[in-house]
C-alpha cells in the first residue's frame, strides 16, 4: 500500500471521504485515496462498483456530495466553471464512449483540444503535435479520417491520442482497452507507463484482470462504492 505521506510532494489526486449518490442510489461511500505525481494506478471492480463515478468526479463532471477532492492542487468540490476549465486543460481524459468531435478529422480532433488548452499554440505546431500523438497510438495513416470512418478500436486509440497529446499532468482513462485487441492494448498500456515515467499521474479504470495482473502497479479495488482494497501487485503475484 502506498502511503501519501511517504513523499514530501503534495498528491496529484486526493479523494478524502468522498460520497456521491445518483438520486437514492449510493454510488460512492466515503472513498479516500491519493496518487502521487508520476504514479500509475488501476481502479478495478465489478460493474456499478463506482469506477466511472470516481473518474467523472476527478474530471469535474460531477460534484462530490460529501468529502473533498483535489486534482493537480485544485479543490474541485466547489470549483467555479473557469477554475474547472483550467483544471481540465491539465487533465487528459479517455472517455468510455470516446467522445470525439464527429465533424472533425482525427488530426483535427487532437489539434482542437491542443489549441483549446493553449491558445498561443500555432496551428501548424498543433497539427504537428497531433500527428505525433496519432503516430504514438499507431493511427497516423488515418489522420484525415472522420471518426465515423474509424473502427471502434481506432476511435478508442484516437481518444487516447487526444488525451495524451497535451502532455497532461493527470491522465484519467475509463476502460481504455475495452475495444482493443491484446496487441493494441499492450501498446496503449506501454504508453501509460511512458506517460507516468514522464511525471504524468495516471489512473486507469478497468475490469481487465489480465492487464492489471501484468502491470505490477498499484491497484485500488472498489466494491459497492467503497475502497475494498488498495495494494501494489508484486512481480511474483
Amino acid at each position: 500500500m502506498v502511503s501519501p505521506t511517504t513523499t514530501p510532494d503534495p498528491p496529484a489526486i486526493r479523494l478524502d471521504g468522498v460520497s456521491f449518490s445518483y438520486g437514492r442510489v449510493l454510488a460512492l461511500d466515503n472513498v479516500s485515496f491519493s496518487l502521487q505525481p508520476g504514479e500509475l494506478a488501476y481502479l478495478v471492480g465489478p460493474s456499478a462498483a463506482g469506477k466511472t463515478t470516481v473518474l467523472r468526479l476527478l474530471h469535474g463532471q460531477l460534484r462530490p456530495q460529501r468529502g473533498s477532492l483535489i486534482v493537480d492542487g485544485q479543490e474541485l468540490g466547489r470549483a467555479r466553471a473557469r477554475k474547472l476549465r483550467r483544471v481540465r486543460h491539465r487533465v487528459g481524459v479517455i472517455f468510455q464512449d470516446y467522445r470525439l468531435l464527429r465533424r472533425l478529422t482525427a488530426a483535427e480532433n487532437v489539434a482542437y483540444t491542443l489549441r483549446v488548452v493553449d491558445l498561443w499554440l500555432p496551428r501548424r505546431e498543433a497539427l504537428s503535435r497531433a500527428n505525433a500523438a496519432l503516430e504514438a497510438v499507431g493511427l497516423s495513416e488515418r489522420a484525415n479520417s472522420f471518426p465515423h470512418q474509424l473502427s471502434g478500436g481506432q476511435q478508442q486509440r484516437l481518444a487516447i491520442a487526444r488525451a495524451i497529446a497535451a502532455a497532461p499532468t493527470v491522465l484519467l482513462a475509463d476502460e481504455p482497452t475495452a475495444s482493443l485487441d491484446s496487441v493494441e492494448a499492450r501498446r496503449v498500456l506501454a504508453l501509460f507507463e511512458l506517460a507516468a515515467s514522464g511525471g504524468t499521474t495516471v489512473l486507469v479504470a478497468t475490469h481487465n484482470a489480465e492487464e492489471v495482473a501484468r502491470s505490477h502497479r498499484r491497484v485500488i479495488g472498489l466494491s459497492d462504492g467503497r475502497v475494498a482494497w488498495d495494494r501494489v501487485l508484486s512481480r511474483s503475484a
Partner: protein
Amino acid sequence: MSLPSRRGGRRGRRLSVLLGNASDLVLGDAFRSWTRNLRTVTPALGTMWLLLVLAGLFTLGALAARNLVQRESRDASVVHVYLKDGVADQDVATLTARLRRDPGVASVRSVSKEEALRSARSRPGLPALAGDASTNPFPASLEVRLHSLADAGRVAGTAARDPAVDPAFPTSYDAGSYQRLQSFVTSVGLVLAGLLLLLTLVATVVTVNGIRAAILGRRDDIATMHLVGASGWMIRGPFVFEGALTGSLAGLLAAAVLVAAFAGLQDVSARTFSQLLPGVDWRAAGICAAGVLAGGAMLGSFASLIGVRGLRA
C-alpha cells in the same frame, strides 16, 4: 514509441498566433463544420429562404402601396380657397402673401373664373352645366397646395375668415372626407407595419426553431467541447457564425429570387402599359434585395445565438 513532450522550451507569445487561433476556433471551425454538415442545416436554410422571399416581396408590395397612398394623399392635399365676386386685387394679393407665409403651405396658385370654367368643362358631368349657364357660375380661387394632409383643416379655417373669401362657400375643404382619408392613410401604415412585424416575428421564431433543431443534433459535440475545456465563446462562436453563414446563403438566394421577380414584374408592366409596383424602381428593388441579404445574416446569427443559449453538456 514516444509521447508528445510538455511545452518544449519558451515559445514566443505572439498576439497574431492568439488571434489566429481564436478566429480559427470560431470562424474556421464554423466554416469547416458548416460545409461538412450543410445537409443538417438545409431545413433551416429552406425555411429562412422562404420567409426572406416573402418578406422581400411583401416589402416591395408595401413600398408600392405606400407610394400609391402618398400620391393620393398628395393629390388630396390641395385646398381651393374660393374668392368673393368682385374682390379687389389688393385683397387677393394680401391673402396670397399670408398663405405663402404659412409653414404648412407648399405653394399658392391663382385660378381665374375663366380657368375654373375651362377646368369644369373637362370634368365628367360638368360640361353640360357649364354650357347651359348664361353666366360663368364658377368662382375665382386660390389653389393652395399643402405639405401635409394634416394641415388642411387649419389652413382652410384660417383662409375662410379672410374678407377676400366667399363667406357662403369659402373653401373646398370637407372635414369629413379629409379625416376619412387621413385615417385611411394612418390605418394603411399601421396595417403594413403590423404585418411586417408579424412576418419578422414568425421568421425569427421559425428560424430559431430550425437552427436549434440543427444545434440539438450536435449536442454530443457541444458536450465534448465542454469536457475538453473549451470556453463558452469557443462553443457558441462557431454556431453563431454558422448561423450567419446559413442566413447569408438564404438571404443571397432570396435576394436573387426577389430581383428576378422584380425584373419579371417590370417586364409585364412594360408590355401591358400598367404600373404593377407604382413608384418602385430598380434602386428601391436593389436596396430591398440588400436588406434581405443583410436581414438573412442577422436573422441567422440571432437565431443561432438564441438557439445555443443554455445548451449545456
